[in-house]
């Protein structure tokens, strides 16, 4: 059993190695073509400028960005943590509720209920609007 466990993760590690190797290899292959002079490589100042509609870009890339991105990131963190707690509960729900009855369900109703109140509050306050 334990052996099976390690074999699965070893297989996963080998898959991960392949998943990195395939895109890297394809990029390297295309880079080799430019060494073999099949692919052109003639950089110039105009070509290396960034894409813009006829202007040269004035300021850097990190201009001010809107506060709403930050607000959504914050809401995401709250509810993603909720998901983390829901997963183990869901996977063991069948077994647990056969043993402990409705208590297992009520527990999660209370936990999610608190978050739903927060969700409704965020909705009322307009935190879920993109404006």
């Amino acid at each position, binding site marked *: 059993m334990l052996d099976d466990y390690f074999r699965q993760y*070893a297989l996963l590690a080998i898959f991960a190695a*392949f998943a990195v190797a395939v895109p890297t290899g394809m990029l390297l292959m295309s880079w080799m073509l430019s060494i073999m002079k099949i692919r052109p490589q003639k950089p110039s100042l105009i070509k290396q400028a960034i894409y813009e509609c006829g202007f040269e870009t004035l300021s850097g890339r990190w201009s001010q960005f809107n506060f709403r991105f930050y607000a959504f990131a914050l809401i995401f963190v709250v509810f993603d943590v909720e998901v983390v707690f829901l997963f183990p509960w869901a996977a063991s729900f069948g077994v647990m509720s056969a043993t402990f009855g409705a208590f297992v369900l009520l527990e999660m109703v209370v936990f999610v209920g608190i978050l739903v109140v927060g969700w409704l509050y965020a909705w009322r306050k307009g935190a*879920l609007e993109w404006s």
Partner: protein
Amino acid sequence: MHEIQTAGILDFGSLERFFQRVLPDSLDRFAFFIAAFTLAFIVINVMVQTTAVYTWFERRVLGRFQGRLGPNRWGPFGMLQPIADLIKLMTKEDMVPKIADRWSFNLAPIILVFPTLLVVAVIPFGPDSFLGRLNIGILFVLGVTSVNTIAIFMAGWGSANKYAMLGAMRGVAMLVSYEVPMALGVVGVLILSGSLAMSDIVIQQNVPFLIVQPLGFLIFIAAASAEMSRTPFDQIEAESELGSGYNTEYSSMKFGMLFLGEFMAPLVTGMIVTTLFLSGTRGFDPIPGQVWFVGKTFAVVFALLWVRATWPRLRVDQIMAFAWKGLFGMALVNIFLIAVEVAVFQDDAGKISTNSLWIMSAINWAIAIGVIVAVANILGQPNLERPTPVPSPLANMYAEAD
């Protein structure tokens, strides 16, 4: 419907036994690694090449939907088009902007393709597959697929272009928002199957979960098509608004890699949806499980294509409202509906009979329709506030002059 007991083509056990027989006894311990390498090599190659075929398929079908021909020059029905594309992308000059952040610019294509290829490692292709038995299966899928959020941000930041940066910012906000409903949509499946392993989820589906929980299926497929930024949700590379979004500055094979990742995503999503909701490799007897799996996957992929061809792009505020107000609430309804039903219908041993599953499906379809109507009424177009039009002072300029 019952399970078919044929040995899989991509079965890890038989591969390992084969190598154990071929190798001399002293090298038996390497049989595992050789078999694993062979399997990974085959699976990942098949994925990359299926993606190539899929690009042709998508362009042909989209052409059909839009009343045009699609690629038809190279080979029969234009089937060699992916090869032509590959040669073109390979031999194009690779341009990197001078002020680009080289590291993140060059690494982003690799990181974008990596999670999509890695997810394949936990999908059970065959009836008795070794691959799907990983005990954290679905958690692994959700965790690994969220890596491409980082890749998209790296691409946008690395290009030092404002269009790319804006596309990436909007993309990250959208991907992050839809991750929550996607994970919540899966929770219903977990309650019914009682396991995180993909092969266990397939075994538990005496009735496909699409029929048992239509709401969970709709939530998952909507969130998944947002995660891979397909057309109703393609804010990341809204061509008409942002140039081309995060891939504006990419050319040559780096663009090819972004392209590969983008086109592999629907295939992988099709596989995950097949496993979670369409009872994976199970089907009627004379046809082997692998064929069922591929057929169902392509049915899902075709449905996604149909959606892409039918709906226009949503506005960014509509997309965010749909994730946080619509899908999130629907997902919570789905979770507690399934939980209550499981608590009511299960016997003392914690098992649910097939008949109860059918009763559950009837209830769930009725409630799903009710919930969808309710959400449509709350978020729908008629109830959106529209600004009252203000007539321009110049509107009647000529009328007054008369």
